[in-house]
C-alpha cells in the first residue's frame, strides 16, 4: 500500500458524493461554456456576412414609369461602378422581391402594383470601400436613395451576443466558485472525520504537507472523475442539440457544432477542475492544520 492511503478518504461517506456533485456542476459549466463559444461563432459569422454587404433602396413613386425607374437604377449602378473596392452589384429582380415579401403578404401579390423600393445588393472587397464617399456619390445622382450598411442591426446583434456570452461566462464563474466552496467543505469534513488519524500522523512526525498531499490527491481525483462524467454528458447533450437543430432547420445550422479547438477547450475542463480542486484542498488543509499543535 502506498503512503497516500494513510487517511481512509476513499471509504469516507461524506466525500463519496463529491464526484457526483462535481459532475453535475461541470455539466452545467460545460453547457454554458459551449453556449458562449457557439454564440461567439454565430456573432462572428453573422458579423462577417453583413460587413461586406450593402443594400441600396431606390424609393419609387406611382408616377414613375418603368423606364424612369430603370434610368435611375442605371445612374446608381454607374456611380457604384466608379467606386473602388466594389465586388458585385446586383439589382434584385421583381421575382426575388416577391419571394422576399411572400411570407408577409402572401403569394398573390404583384410587387409592381405596390410602392416597394427597388433593391440593389452590393458586395464589397474587405475594407476597400470608403462608405462616406460612396454615400456622397450616390446621393449626388439620386438624392432620395437609402443606403443600408446594416451597421445598426449589426451593433444591436453583437450587443445581444456579447450580453449572452457574459451570462454564459458568469454561469461558468459561479459554478467554479461553488465548486471551490464544495471542495473546501468536503475537505473540512474529511479533516474533522479523520482528526484522530491526522493527530497520529502528526505525532509520528508527519509534516502538514504530507497530510495535505493525501487530501489533494483525493480531491483532484474525485474532481477529475466527476468532471469527466460532466464533460462527457455535456458533449452528448451538445451533439444531440446540434442534431435536433439541424433536423429542424434542414441542416442549415452548422454553427451549432463546435470546432476542434472548442472541443479541446471542453476536454481541458476535467484537468482544470482537478487542478482547482487540488489547490482548494491543499489550501484548506494547510490552513486548518496550522491551528493544530
Amino acid at each position, binding site marked *: *500500500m502506498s*503512503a497516500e*492511503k*494513510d487517511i*481512509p478518504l476513499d*471509504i469516507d461517506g461524506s466525500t463519496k458524493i463529491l464526484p457526483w456533485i462535481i459532475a453535475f456542476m461541470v455539466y452545467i459549466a460545460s453547457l454554458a461554456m459551449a453556449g458562449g463559444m457557439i454564440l461567439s461563432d454565430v456573432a462572428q459569422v453573422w458579423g462577417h456576412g453583413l460587413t461586406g454587404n450593402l443594400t441600396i433602396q431606390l424609393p419609387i413613386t406611382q408616377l414613375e414609369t418603368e423606364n424612369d425607374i430603370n434610368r435611375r437604377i442605371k445612374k446608381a449602378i454607374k456611380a457604384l461602378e466608379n467606386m473602388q473596392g466594389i465586388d458585385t452589384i446586383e439589382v434584385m429582380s421583381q421575382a426575388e422581391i416577391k419571394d422576399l415579401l411572400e411570407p408577409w403578404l402572401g403569394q398573390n401579390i404583384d410587387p409592381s402594383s405596390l410602392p416597394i423600393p427597388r433593391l440593389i445588393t452590393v458586395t464589397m472587397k474587405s475594407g476597400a470601400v470608403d462608405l462616406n464617399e460612396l454615400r456622397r456619390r450616390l446621393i449626388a445622382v439620386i438624392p432620395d436613395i437609402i443606403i443600408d450598411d446594416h451597421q445598426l442591426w449589426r451593433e444591436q446583434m453583437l450587443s445581444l451576443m456579447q450580453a449572452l456570452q457574459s451570462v454564459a461566462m458568469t454561469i461558468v464563474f459561479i459554478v467554479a466558485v461553488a465548486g471551490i466552496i464544495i471542495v473546501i467543505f468536503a475537505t473540512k469534513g474529511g479533516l474533522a472525520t479523520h482528526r*484522530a*488519524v491526522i*493527530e*497520529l*500522523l*502528526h*505525532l*509520528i*512526525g*508527519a*509534516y*502538514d504537507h*504530507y497530510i495535505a498531499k493525501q487530501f489533494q490527491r483525493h480531491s483532484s481525483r474525485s474532481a477529475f472523475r466527476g468532471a469527466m462524467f460532466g464533460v462527457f454528458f455535456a458533449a452528448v447533450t451538445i451533439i444531440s442539440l446540434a442534431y435536433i437543430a439541424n433536423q429542424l432547420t434542414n441542416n442549415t445550422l452548422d454553427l451549432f457544432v463546435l470546432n476542434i479547438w472548442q472541443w479541446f477547450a471542453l476536454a481541458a475542463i476535467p484537468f482544470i477542475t482537478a487542478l482547482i480542486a487540488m489547490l482548494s484542498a491543499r489550501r484548506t488543509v494547510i490552513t486548518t492544520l*496550522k491551528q493544530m*499543535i
Partner: protein
Amino acid sequence: MIQFENVGMRYGVGPEVLRDVTFHLKPASFHFLTGASGAGKSSLLKLMYLANKPSRGLISIFNKDITTLSKSEMPGIRRRIGVVFQDFRLLDHLTTFDNVALPLRVNGTAEKLIKKHVIELLNWVGLADHIDVRPATLSGGQKQRVAIARAIISRPSLLLADEPTGNVDDKIAVRLLYLFEELNRMGTSVLIATHNENIIRRFQHPILQLIDGKLIKKPAYSSSQSNMVNQ
C-alpha cells in the same frame, strides 16, 4: 537529553494536573514512570511527545526548548520519539504491515527498505504470520506488539510507552520488557509508564513517581528487594 524545569500543565482553565515537575533524562537511560490513576502519567508523556504544551516551566528535548518551538520544527523532533499509546492508536483500515510501516513512510523511506525492516521487526515481535491482517482481527496482546513495533521501527532516540503491559499476561509482559531493554542497549532512552509492580521490581530501573501531579525520583529496586517480591 530531556529536561523538565518547574513544569506545570493544566487542561484549559482546569486545575494543574502537573505541578513543578523537574527531572532530567540522560541519553540511553531507562526509567519507569509510576503513579496512581489520574496522577498525571499520561499528561507527562503527552508533554514529552509534543502532543501538548506546558502551562509554565521549561522543557528541553534533544536540546531544543519546546515551549518556543515552531510548528515546522516539531516533526523533526517527533520523528526521534517512538510512542506506544495506551489505546494503541492503530489505524483500523491498514494492515499490520502498513501500521508498522507508517513512521517510515512519513519520513520518506524507500518502499524496498520499508519492506525489509518491517518484515524483520514483525518477525522479532512474533507477528510474522499476521502481516496482512487488520487490527480488528488481532488480540489485545497482538495489537500491543504492533503498536510497539510501530514505535520502534524508525530506531527512535527516545521511546515512551504508556502502560505497554496493560493488555498482556505476565509472560508476554516480561518478553516485551526484554525487548525494550535490548533497544535501550542499542542507545534508545526508554520511559515506561506502568502500574505493574512485578515488572518494576524485576527489571530494576530508576523510577519517576507521580503523586497528585508532583514528581518524585526514586532509585531502582535492589536485587534483594526484587528477590523478596519474586519469592
